[in-house]
């Protein structure tokens, strides 16, 4: 049997790489999934912040956290929240406070307000890569807490 292609798969916590060695040519495998280069970028950003002694996990107050949770829950249901819907979350705070908290989340780079498709009249609130990293960190903390005895 003649081996024509050799596929190598490397993976660790930072992502995965599939490399094919075919007919003395090295190339990415055609079946390769979407790359995790965003992870490399996040790693770089967080490393820069650690080196600069900057706080990496933002310290949010309770209502800002609640607002961020609502945005994430909307996104998890694959339904982006509009800015109008956000301003209507009266169980969290008044519209004025919600606006202030939303601006804080925007400034922290955890969420972004974007237009979708050609509709320039409605702005949607989405989690940014940093926002997703924030929830990943919380998920990781839960995993650690579950693993630790007592």
């Amino acid at each position: 049997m003649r081996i024509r292609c050799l596929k190598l798969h490397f993976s660790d916590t930072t992502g995965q790489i599939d490399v094919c060695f075919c007919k003395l040519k090295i190339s990415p495998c055609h079946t390769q999934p979407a790359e995790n280069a965003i992870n490399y970028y996040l790693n770089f950003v967080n490393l820069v912040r650690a080196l600069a002694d900057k706080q990496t996990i933002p310290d949010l107050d309770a209502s800002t956290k609640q607002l961020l949770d609502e945005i994430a829950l909307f996104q998890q249901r694959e339904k982006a929240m509009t800015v109008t819907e956000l301003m209507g979350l009266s169980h969290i705070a008044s519209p004025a406070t919600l606006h202030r908290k939303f601006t804080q989340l925007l400034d922290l780079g955890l969420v972004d307000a974007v237009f979708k498709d050609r509709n320039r009249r409605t702005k949607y609130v989405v989690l940014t890569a940093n926002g997703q990293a924030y929830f990943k960190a919380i998920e990781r903390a839960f995993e650690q807490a579950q693993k630790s005895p007592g």
Partner: protein
Amino acid sequence: MRISLSSHGPVTLFLGVTTLFAVVYSVNNLLTSFLLLVPGAHLVHIPSGFKLLLVLVCGWSAALAIGLVSFAASAFFFFEGNLLLAVQLALANAAAPLLTRRFFVDHLGLDRNLVNLNGHRLMGLGLLYAVLNSCMNQWLIHFHQASPDLIEGLAVMLVGDITGIWIVMVLFRSLARRLAPKLGPY
């Protein structure tokens, strides 16, 4: 929000990291050849700091790059002709930063994207990496009878790795303080 990236990303990244590390490694060895006190161990080894930072950011791609450069340096310069030792040193050099990172992620709560990385954790990573790297390298070199004194080799390499990591951290720290504000408050 969906982010799609080119499938050539990892290969380009690997080539970039290999080139960067090869340049750093060559320049360091050219400038500090007088500090090569025992086989395989400089008293100041700046590439050690780069190894750790590159693996922290790029994971496997950086480890492969480090292994490749380490193999070339061992097989063609430091231990010419001893291919088995060169392969083993390449594996050790690639594995040491990866294992360090893995240990911190699995047992010390370091986030996979380094979200909770701070100065203390970086110091811990640096120390563990220096110990692991020195032990693996010097044990292999001693095992192949390329170095007569294991303890002396260990001591020199440990000091070299720690000073190298410290220099790189200090250099990058001043760079990071300029770069961090441009990356936003979070």
